[in-house]
């Protein structure tokens, strides 16, 4: 139709409209499936072995001290642990754990506390904070209702409000491991392994919190209307009588708080408490003092501390390596099975005789005595 004056309904003749787009037809044939399976097998197994070894290389010492407060005032061996002794000072609520490091922990060395059955991922828990309050303070009436039931008491706002802050882990670990001279259990040497509590939170976390000055600026003279969460008043001696201009939390620099506020994804979790990036942890027997305030018995959880090095994939976790090896082996096995089947009984690609209707009709036409082959 050359006449362009007449508006034609003729559809446009292009690749999309006519559904003739250039396309590749992926078909699983032995030629591409078998190499793929073998490739996955051959490449995943070494990677898995590498990851497994890397995980195995991580040195780790874990000790659960939940029951520490029930022990005696002198060092006694801990059941089920080899070479670990503990004692408890009831008056000061200090638990001292003596343990042996058998191999050198290459730097950096990390010190974690570990809680189990603690549902930091509980829905009411996760959201129970007010980000603005944490950054620069917030008027009571504007406070996020998610903070309930720790939002307000007697017209005074909790700072920081909410469940997360209130339930903060309050045990204090000594900032050093004290090496015990060998042979004499009760003597302590001056040789210590220092642990720093700096840089234990994600660097970006500091941006979410205000400094003490920020808060003081906001709350000003009205500090009497801002009270610490109930647990804090009990656990932190300095907050027993509430806030004043000097003890007001400096959240931006309080990394333990920041670490706590990053709610863990699973009910068993570790949180970084301190670390040493400078020196290796030499083998030997070490003591550590723990101020034991946090009651995990009440909800049936446990608490531990973990001293560990890391690998490229984090802690001592062989699972990734095993997963790779497993996938690799499965792939290889199927590769071999399919290869044998293919060699033993191959099927010609695109053979017409496999078409269902040809199957039926070959018998039919054969009776007519034709030879269409």
């Amino acid at each position, binding site marked *: 139709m050359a006449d362009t004056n007449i508006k034609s309904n003729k559809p446009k003749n292009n690749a999309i*409209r006519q559904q003739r787009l250039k396309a*590749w037809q992926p078909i699983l044939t032995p030629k591409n499936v078998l190499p793929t399976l073998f490739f996955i097998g051959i490449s995943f197994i070494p990677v898995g072995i590498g990851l497994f070894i890397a995980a195995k290389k991580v040195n780790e010492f874990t000790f659960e001290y939940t029951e520490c407060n029930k022990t005696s005032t002198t060092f006694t061996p801990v059941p089920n642990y080899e070479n670990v002794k503990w004692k408890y000072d009831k008056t000061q609520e200090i638990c001292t754990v003596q343990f042996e490091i058998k191999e050198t922990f290459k730097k950096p060395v990390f010190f974690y506390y570990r809680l189990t059955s603690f549902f930091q991922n509980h829905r009411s828990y996760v959201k129970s904070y007010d980000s603005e309050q944490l950054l620069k303070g917030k008027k009571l009436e504007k406070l996020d209702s998610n903070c309930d039931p720790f939002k307000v008491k007697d017209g005074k706002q909790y700072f920081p409000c909410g469940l997360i802050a209130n339930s903060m882990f309050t045990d204090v670990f000594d900032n050093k491991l004290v090496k015990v001279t060998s042979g004499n259990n009760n003597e302590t040497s001056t040789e210590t392994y220092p642990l720093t509590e700096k840089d234990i939170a*994600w660097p970006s976390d500091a941006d979410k919190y205000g400094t003490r000055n920020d808060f003081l600026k906001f709350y000003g003279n009205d500090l009497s209307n801002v009270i610490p969460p*109930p647990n804090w008043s009990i656990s932190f001696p300095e907050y027993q009588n509430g806030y004043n201009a000097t003890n007001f939390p400096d959240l931006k620099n309080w990394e333990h708080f920041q670490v706590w506020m990053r709610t863990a994804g699973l009910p068993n979790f570790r949180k970084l408490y301190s670390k040493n990036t400078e020196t290796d942890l030499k083998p030997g027997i070490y003591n550590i003092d723990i101020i034991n305030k946090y009651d995990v018995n009440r909800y049936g959880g446990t608490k531990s501390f973990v001293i560990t090095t890391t690998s490229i*994939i984090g802690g001592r*976790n062989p699972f990734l390596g095993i997963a790779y090896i497993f996938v690799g082996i499965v792939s290889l096995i199927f590769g071999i099975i399919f290869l044998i089947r293919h060699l033993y009984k191959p099927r010609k690609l*695109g053979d017409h005789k496999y078409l269902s209707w040809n199957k039926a009709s070959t018998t039919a036409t054969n009776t007519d005595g034709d030879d269409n082959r």
Partner: protein
Amino acid sequence: MDRDNNPFMTYSFEDGNYEEDNDTYEINNYDDDVGLTTGQTNYQQKNLANKYAKKNLLQRIQDSSVYASVSHVFNLMRGKDDTPQPSDSFRYIQLNDPVTNSLGKYTHNRISTAKYNVFTFLYKFLKEQFSKYANVFFLVTALIQQIPGVSPLNPLTTILPLSIVLLVSAVKEIFEDYKRHCSDNDENNRKIQVLVGSSFIVKKWRDLHVGDIVRVENSSFFPADLILLSSSEPDALCYIETSNLDGETNLKVRQGLPETANLTNAEAVSEIRGVLKSEQPNNSLYTYEGVIELNGKELPLTPNQLLLRGSQLRNTKWVYAIIINTGHETKLMKNATEAPIKQTNLEKMTNVQIVFLFVILIAMSLFCSIGYFLKDFATFQEFVFQEKLLQKFTDIIYGFFTFIILFNNLIPISLVVTMEFVKYGQSVLINSDIEIYHEETDTPTQCKTSNLVEELGQVEYIFSDKTGTLTCNVMEFKMCTIAGKSYAKEVTDDKRIVKGENGVEKGYYDFNRLIENSKADMSVNVIVEFLTLLAVCHTVIPEQSDTSPEGYIYQASSPDEGALVKGAASLGYVFTTRRPKSVSIRVDNEEKEFELLNICEFNSTRKRMSVVVRNPEGQIKLYTKGADTVILERLSGNNPYVDYTLNQLEEYATEGLRTLCLASRDIPEDEYIRWNKAYEKAATSLTNRAAELDRVAELIEKDLFLLGATAIEDKLQEGVPDTIHTLAQANIKLWVLTGDKQETAINIGYSCKLLTEEMSLIVCNEETHNTTKEFISNRLRSLKESMPAYVSHRNFQLQTPMSKIRSLIFGKKDESVDLDDIEPLALVIDGKSLGYALEPDMELMFLELATLCRAVICCRVSPLQKALIVKLVKKYTNSILLAIGDGANDVGMIQAAHVGVGISGVEGLQAARSSDFAIAQFRYLRKLLLVHGSWSYHRLSKLILYSFYKNIAMFMTQFWFTLDNGFSGQTLYESWTITSYNVIFTVFSPVVIGLFDQILNSRMLDQYPQLYKIGQKSEVFNIKIFWGWILNGFFHSFAIYYMTKWIWHESIVTASGYSADLWMMGIVMFSVVLAVVLLKAILITNNWNKFTTYATAGAFAAWIIGLPIYGWIAPSLFGISPELIGVSLPLYTGLMFWVSLLVIPVFCLLRDYIWKYYKRFYKTESYHIVQEIQKFNIPDYRPRMEWFRKAVHKVRMVQRLKRNRGYAFSQNEGGQARIIRAYDTTQIKPSG
């Protein structure tokens, strides 16, 4: 009364009874249950009312206009123009009195087939949308989410997508309805001449009113239901074509009352006064009751004066007629049922599965809310919250709601909109397919309802109209045999004359040779006689014309006759003039007049027509044409050409041509005089006149001399036989439902390859209920005995709502029979027998018999029967039915079927308007079904399965996580991340699959029609496959969650030693899910184009790149998603993220990959092979086989030719002589 005289009386299936005696006007209301009233009293009351009305004219006009506008709005709101009727069996229409008529509160002549208007849109649209379970579910979810404290997600995360979904659907609906409005407007704005004062002026159709007198010109459509007053033809005769109404293509005659026949100019017609009493509008096409009161005389009106909207004036210059029904009150529109909302099988199944998923969802939510109680971390709660939670009952409810919201995405919200969008896209692609665009009429294929595209891939039965669908409705005089020689209009090379061994010529001469031979040949006399017969013996009326090559247009009520006369004219025997007592033909510029002495009419028992003429030489001759059977019986002993002619007839028949035998006889003068006396007596006999005339005709129709035979081609549309053959290969059963006679229908069956020689015909032509029943049950019994056991054991079950649901839940039972297993059969059933067969006690047997046949032809069926047959099959099987037709008579069946296809491209096509798909040519059905249907089915099946899968793979991780967070309903993923999953990152891959995936390319699908069975048998989307996918989704989510959890290792996942948090875990998991789900999309893609790359790799890249950017911008700029602050970079820089991203997806998809390969090689399906044929371009040896089969076929064909020669004659029965005698073409017609 002579039944044959009135074509309308042959059908009466309305519940209203039609009184044959038109003088009594006691009549039931057809439509509504308004009481029975006698017309007479009402008539008087009405007259009084009219007088009263005139007094208060002014005020009443105002009132009525107010009423009209109010009622109009009201009607608009109901979406229907159905003005309330006064309780009266008749309407009283004043002639030439528009003012009084305007008081009649008749409806306007505008029609509206649109679904919505401005006022009803919102209501209707929302009603339709919320009839989908999914939408209701999401609305409820969205509402629950608004309750503070319940939702673990942002309150907008459901309502926003839902609004988008609804908005997109709304836009689509508006767009589609707009097109309907436009086509309505086109029709409403057509022009017509209306009498105003004493002259005709042009108005639009929409402005017509009841009582207006209109002038309709030749070949235009009637704008409303009319009563014929007068016409350009003698005695107010006119021809109409009603194919739009009933599918019958032969022209019908209507005749005005003699009292109005003389109103042949505007002045005359403007002066008539009186009242027309017309029945209230109803939907019965074949009955009419009315009285016209002229000059104090009451004259009954019958269907013979009725011109219905939808029919067309033919072969008549003009008519004057008065409007009785307008707009939606016309019988045509009354017949139009509101277009049903059709839901596809796939959608229904999806809906049922959604309900199941919903049950699972509820179960999961219940489980979790109970878990909340039972889990012994109550102590933990006490510890953390320092209060006991969940003591109030509302907390339980809240908890339950929380889980509902958390898991609500197990039911994919994007599915509905994705499906709508994809279906619309597919319909656009179908519309723009250039291969199914008809160049000559400039008509592309049109998907009117994009909803049904995938249904095209599952069709098992096609119900096709014949005329205009399979055939062009053009008859052509193709071949003839005269005096033992064959002639053809076009001679193909393989049919040219060859000299046989003994010097006998075999083959065909062309028509030029015939013209030569008619002047100088041994058989010249026979040829002359033959051609003269063609030009003389018929009921055609000639009209001079400059445009036609012969100089005349022949108006024939039978297209066959028209073709013959035209053929004779082209061979030099031009029929020129018809006078009441003679006809003239022109041969070699010489006018020859034949005196028409007697006419022996055609009817279906005689199967022949004869005329007795006196030729210019004064000899009396009998010319007869008719079916071979009846002619051969009446030949004289000395007939040299019988054997040859019979051979030829068989040959014609194999080609599906319609044949007639021609014979003549010289009648001695004395014999004629004797016979004529008998004839006169019969013609004037008072009782049994028709039978008497038939008997008399027998006396003279004997000792005939066979001149030869003609062959007319009922021209098939292009590519019809091929298409039918291909569709049969695709296991689609074609049922042809035609208004034609049995012989004609069988004929067409052969010529379009629906019937083949190896088929045994079961012809059911019974007269009574009992014989029909006997016939069907006998046949069925004997058939079952010879069949494989499974065939006879199948039993059809009524598709009750329960059984339908059951089949949707458990998959459909396959009652279909593999027809390859059984002897090829074809059923031919007559309309009358069919009527009985469709009765409740027989319908099952009939269905069973019919479904055993490869082809079914139903002849002489009414529009209602067409719809009934479709409904019958629908009732007992769960096959997908497609109906295709071109006329208004097909509308019922088109609407009843799952998929309605209309033929478009020619004017005035009701069917196309109420259809779901409109195509220009029957042959386009092939690509529409085999290619587009298959594509759509595969694409949508995959889209649905994949959409469910991807949501389950994603949101089941939330469930596993719930087990780890104390059943608190915490979400793993940040709110907007979740939303983006369905709205951004995984929306494109199903769309790309839905729009572009091709299981095979169009060439392959076309070449291997057998692959169509995949769709018919629901092999891609059925209950097993659906739950397979769901299980796979569960497995993937399980693997993803637990592998990530184990990798997570108490939050220490980077070399830097920092403790990771919940949200980091969420990000890792999200990335893994995304990788798995997008890889799965790649794995199921059959056809990877650039869009596939964008939608999969592109989406994943967008996530990886977009996340840090979003995590940086959104919290600081908009204050949303604070959870994402500083989350992504530590992960990206650590190794753990990337190795997890590799191993988990590979682990998940290794299963799918291996399984897919295993299926291809060890459970090979045909489509696997064809895919390979396509990919590696493997040549097919099929052409050779095909060729071989054809050869075998031909041999069989020749062997088995022992059946009816195709005889056909589509003449109106009765009244032929009267019409012939009425015309005198030498007189000048009134100009109107």
